[in-house]
Protein backbone atom coordinates (compact mmCIF):
# COMPACT_ATOMS: atom_id res chain seq x y z
CA UNK A 1 0.00 0.00 0.00
CA UNK A 2 2.87 2.33 0.75
CA UNK A 3 4.30 1.56 -2.66
CA UNK A 4 1.08 2.71 -4.35
CA UNK A 5 0.96 5.82 -2.23
CA UNK A 6 4.56 6.70 -3.11
CA UNK A 7 4.00 6.08 -6.78
CA UNK A 8 0.79 8.11 -6.89
CA UNK A 9 2.28 11.02 -4.96
CA UNK A 10 5.55 10.88 -6.86
CA UNK A 11 7.72 10.58 -3.75
CA UNK A 12 11.39 10.00 -4.48
CA UNK A 13 12.59 9.75 -0.91
CA UNK A 14 13.07 6.49 0.98
CA UNK A 15 9.81 5.37 2.54
CA UNK A 16 10.09 2.79 5.32
CA UNK A 17 7.53 0.61 7.06
CA UNK A 18 7.45 0.00 10.79
CA UNK A 19 4.48 -2.35 11.09
CA UNK A 20 5.21 -3.48 14.64
CA UNK A 21 6.13 0.04 15.72
CA UNK A 22 9.57 -1.25 16.81
CA UNK A 23 11.54 1.78 15.68
CA UNK A 24 8.74 4.05 16.84
CA UNK A 25 9.13 2.58 20.30
CA UNK A 26 12.92 2.74 20.17
CA UNK A 27 12.63 6.47 19.52
CA UNK A 28 9.93 6.76 22.21
CA UNK A 29 7.41 8.20 19.78
CA UNK A 30 4.56 5.76 20.39
CA UNK A 31 1.09 7.23 20.64
CA UNK A 32 -0.92 4.23 21.87
CA UNK A 33 -4.43 3.83 20.48
CA UNK A 34 -4.43 7.15 18.66
CA UNK A 35 -5.06 5.64 15.25
CA UNK A 36 -8.44 5.98 13.55
CA UNK A 37 -9.38 2.40 14.50
CA UNK A 38 -7.54 2.55 17.81
CA UNK A 39 -4.20 1.32 16.49
CA UNK A 40 -0.90 2.40 18.01
CA UNK A 41 0.71 5.03 15.84
CA UNK A 42 3.63 7.42 16.05
CA UNK A 43 3.35 10.98 17.27
CA UNK A 44 4.77 13.29 14.62
CA UNK A 45 8.49 14.06 14.87
CA UNK A 46 11.38 15.02 12.63
CA UNK A 47 15.08 14.47 13.26
CA UNK A 48 18.09 15.74 11.37
CA UNK A 49 20.99 13.27 11.68
CA UNK A 50 24.49 14.17 10.55
CA UNK A 51 26.93 11.90 8.74
CA UNK A 52 28.35 10.53 11.98
CA UNK A 53 24.89 9.50 13.18
CA UNK A 54 24.51 12.27 15.74
CA UNK A 55 21.22 14.10 16.01
CA UNK A 56 21.67 17.77 15.16
CA UNK A 57 18.05 18.93 15.28
CA UNK A 58 14.87 17.41 16.62
CA UNK A 59 11.30 18.63 16.31
CA UNK A 60 8.68 16.94 18.47
CA UNK A 61 5.68 19.13 17.82
CA UNK A 62 3.35 19.88 20.73
CA UNK A 63 0.36 20.09 18.44
CA UNK A 64 -0.01 17.52 15.73
CA UNK A 65 -1.49 20.04 13.31
CA UNK A 66 1.76 21.97 13.35
CA UNK A 67 4.69 20.18 11.70
CA UNK A 68 8.14 21.27 10.58
CA UNK A 69 8.04 23.10 7.30
CA UNK A 70 10.39 22.36 4.41
CA UNK A 71 12.10 25.74 4.71
CA UNK A 72 12.82 25.08 8.40
CA UNK A 73 14.42 21.74 7.59
CA UNK A 74 16.45 23.14 4.70
CA UNK A 75 17.77 25.87 6.96
CA UNK A 76 18.84 23.29 9.55
CA UNK A 77 20.36 21.03 6.93
CA UNK A 78 22.45 23.93 5.66
CA UNK A 79 24.32 23.90 8.97
CA UNK A 80 25.64 20.40 8.33
CA UNK A 81 29.09 20.14 6.83
Amino acid at each position, binding site marked *: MSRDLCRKAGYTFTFLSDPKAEVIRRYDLLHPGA*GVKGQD*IARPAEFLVDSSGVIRW*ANLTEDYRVRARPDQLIEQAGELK
Partner: protein
Amino acid sequence: MVGFASLPVLARFPATRDVPWVNLLLFGTGLALLFVGLRRAFVQPKQYRGKIAGPILGALSTVIVALFCFLVFYQTRQLPVSTGAPKVGEKAPEFVLSDTRNQPVSLSSLLSTPFTNTQMPPKGVVLVFYRGYW
Protein backbone atom coordinates in the same frame (compact mmCIF):
# COMPACT_ATOMS: atom_id res chain seq x y z
CA MET B 1 -20.47 27.19 8.72
CA VAL B 2 -18.09 28.73 6.22
CA GLY B 3 -15.47 28.79 8.92
CA PHE B 4 -15.64 25.05 9.27
CA ALA B 5 -15.79 24.21 5.58
CA SER B 6 -12.82 26.37 4.70
CA LEU B 7 -10.51 24.41 7.01
CA PRO B 8 -9.12 22.03 4.35
CA VAL B 9 -8.29 24.97 2.10
CA LEU B 10 -6.70 27.11 4.77
CA ALA B 11 -4.73 24.20 6.22
CA ARG B 12 -2.49 24.28 3.15
CA PHE B 13 -1.05 27.64 4.07
CA PRO B 14 1.31 27.63 7.08
CA ALA B 15 0.28 31.14 8.05
CA THR B 16 -3.32 30.09 8.50
CA ARG B 17 -2.75 26.51 9.63
CA ASP B 18 -0.63 26.96 12.73
CA VAL B 19 -3.07 29.34 14.34
CA PRO B 20 -6.42 29.15 12.51
CA TRP B 21 -7.11 32.85 12.89
CA VAL B 22 -9.20 33.14 9.70
CA ASN B 23 -11.50 30.37 10.86
CA LEU B 24 -11.74 31.95 14.29
CA LEU B 25 -12.52 35.29 12.66
CA LEU B 26 -15.30 33.74 10.60
CA PHE B 27 -16.69 31.99 13.65
CA GLY B 28 -16.51 35.20 15.62
CA THR B 29 -18.47 37.01 12.91
CA GLY B 30 -21.02 34.21 12.84
CA LEU B 31 -21.51 34.35 16.59
CA ALA B 32 -21.81 38.13 16.50
CA LEU B 33 -24.53 37.90 13.83
CA LEU B 34 -26.25 35.24 15.91
CA PHE B 35 -26.21 37.52 18.92
CA VAL B 36 -27.66 40.42 16.90
CA GLY B 37 -30.37 38.15 15.54
CA LEU B 38 -31.32 36.89 18.99
CA ARG B 39 -31.46 40.39 20.42
CA ARG B 40 -33.70 41.51 17.58
CA ALA B 41 -36.00 38.55 18.14
CA PHE B 42 -36.41 39.34 21.83
CA VAL B 43 -36.95 43.07 21.24
CA GLN B 44 -39.66 42.49 18.62
CA PRO B 45 -41.28 39.26 19.76
CA LYS B 46 -44.47 39.70 17.73
CA GLN B 47 -42.56 39.67 14.45
CA TYR B 48 -40.44 36.65 15.26
CA ARG B 49 -42.85 34.41 17.11
CA GLY B 50 -43.25 31.00 15.58
CA LYS B 51 -40.06 31.14 13.54
CA ILE B 52 -38.26 28.07 14.74
CA ALA B 53 -35.48 27.85 12.15
CA GLY B 54 -33.56 30.68 13.75
CA PRO B 55 -33.05 29.15 17.19
CA ILE B 56 -32.28 25.74 15.73
CA LEU B 57 -29.63 27.06 13.37
CA GLY B 58 -28.30 29.25 16.13
CA ALA B 59 -27.89 26.31 18.49
CA LEU B 60 -26.30 24.23 15.73
CA SER B 61 -23.82 26.98 14.90
CA THR B 62 -22.84 27.35 18.53
CA VAL B 63 -22.22 23.63 18.80
CA ILE B 64 -20.07 23.67 15.66
CA VAL B 65 -17.97 26.55 16.94
CA ALA B 66 -17.50 24.83 20.29
CA LEU B 67 -16.48 21.60 18.57
CA PHE B 68 -13.99 23.43 16.36
CA CYS B 69 -12.40 25.16 19.34
CA PHE B 70 -12.21 21.88 21.25
CA LEU B 71 -10.52 20.13 18.34
CA VAL B 72 -8.10 22.88 17.50
CA PHE B 73 -7.09 23.98 20.95
CA TYR B 74 -7.27 20.77 22.90
CA GLN B 75 -7.56 17.56 20.92
CA THR B 76 -4.59 18.07 18.60
CA ARG B 77 -2.30 18.79 21.55
CA GLN B 78 -3.06 15.45 23.23
CA LEU B 79 0.30 13.85 22.56
CA PRO B 80 2.48 11.59 24.68
CA VAL B 81 5.42 13.22 26.46
CA SER B 82 8.09 11.17 24.65
CA THR B 83 10.82 11.93 27.18
CA GLY B 84 12.81 8.97 25.91
CA ALA B 85 13.12 10.36 22.40
CA PRO B 86 16.70 10.95 21.28
CA LYS B 87 17.86 14.49 21.85
CA VAL B 88 20.19 16.81 20.01
CA GLY B 89 23.76 15.65 20.55
CA GLU B 90 22.84 12.02 21.09
CA LYS B 91 23.37 9.27 18.58
CA ALA B 92 20.29 8.39 16.58
CA PRO B 93 19.39 4.77 17.42
CA GLU B 94 20.26 2.37 14.62
CA PHE B 95 17.42 0.54 12.91
CA VAL B 96 16.62 -1.70 9.95
CA LEU B 97 13.24 -1.45 8.26
CA SER B 98 11.75 -2.51 4.93
CA ASP B 99 11.24 0.00 2.15
CA THR B 100 8.45 -0.04 -0.41
CA ARG B 101 10.24 -2.80 -2.38
CA ASN B 102 10.58 -4.92 0.76
CA GLN B 103 14.34 -4.34 0.83
CA PRO B 104 15.93 -3.86 4.25
CA VAL B 105 17.23 -0.35 4.82
CA SER B 106 19.37 0.56 7.81
CA LEU B 107 20.10 4.00 9.21
CA SER B 108 23.84 3.40 8.86
CA SER B 109 23.43 2.50 5.19
CA LEU B 110 21.40 5.67 4.60
CA LEU B 111 24.20 7.71 6.13
CA SER B 112 27.02 6.01 4.28
CA THR B 113 25.70 5.06 0.83
CA PRO B 114 27.03 7.60 -1.68
CA PHE B 115 24.71 9.30 -4.13
CA THR B 116 24.98 7.85 -7.61
CA ASN B 117 25.43 11.22 -9.30
CA THR B 118 28.04 12.78 -7.02
CA GLN B 119 29.66 9.65 -5.56
CA MET B 120 29.62 11.47 -2.23
CA PRO B 121 27.88 10.18 0.91
CA PRO B 122 25.08 12.37 2.23
CA LYS B 123 25.87 15.08 4.74
CA GLY B 124 22.98 13.86 6.80
CA VAL B 125 19.61 12.18 6.91
CA VAL B 126 16.18 13.57 7.81
CA LEU B 127 13.97 11.13 9.70
CA VAL B 128 10.28 11.96 9.52
CA PHE B 129 7.88 10.04 11.72
CA TYR B 130 4.34 10.31 10.42
CA ARG B 131 1.20 10.26 12.46
CA GLY B 132 -1.02 7.73 10.82
CA TYR B 133 -1.55 4.22 9.68
CA TRP B 134 -2.33 2.67 6.33
